[in-house]
């Protein structure tokens, strides 16, 4: 079974530029999560999708961050414009009723804003 795929693996941008991350969840998984993990901290939930609908985006900084999950499969997370404090690893995870409550994570995208 293929795991959660994320790209790119690394990204370096200048502040005020825009950036997009892509996630392809495990086939058949209805739930998709995006997390931000700053070095030395636990993952912080940014947004959760159930199929193509948003379940929770209460911690998403909506003035600069946006996310979509068209057709309820893969998803993109965008930051525009980026700030220095956005430097972090962005993790995507997916789960389904069939997996119980267990989430499967991708390797993440490490973003450095300079």
């Amino acid at each position: 079974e293929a795991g959660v795929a994320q790209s790119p693996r690394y990204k370096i941008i200048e502040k005020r530029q825009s950036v997009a991350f892509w996630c392809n969840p495990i086939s058949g998984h209805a739930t998709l999560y995006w997390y931000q993990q700053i070095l030395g901290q636990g993952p912080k939930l940014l947004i959760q999708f159930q199929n193509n609908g948003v379940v929770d985006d209460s911690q998403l900084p909506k003035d600069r961050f946006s996310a979509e999950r068209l057709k309820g499969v893969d998803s993109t997370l965008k930051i525009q414009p980026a700030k220095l404090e956005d430097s972090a690893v962005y993790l995507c995870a997916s789960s389904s009723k069939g997996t119980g409550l267990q989430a499967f994570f991708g390797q993440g995208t490490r973003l450095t804003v300079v």
Partner: protein
Amino acid sequence: SQKIEQNSEALNIQEGKTATLTCNYTNYSPAYLQWYRQDPGRGPVFLLLIRENEKEKRKERLKVTFDTTLKQSLFHITASQPADSATYLCAPNRGANNLFFGTGTRLTVIP
């Protein structure tokens, strides 16, 4: 708002000893609690899930307890090995939505 705290950012123990990690939560009542392991440069990997009506759960050398009165979970690794060195994350959650994580504890097992 809900808060999830894990004891000490780092824990060092001698190989062969039992490692005990703590997860405390406040301001909500989770129906279940998950533990994940995260290695450097990788995403978290699921280890164990315990439900509110379960006091204890075991898997090989791992044991998890869940005390809803104390609002605390303990995660034990017995006969620890250097390969157990990683960051361990707890995630107490109410239901299928909103998978929130604690701050994490970095465990180092010294040979």
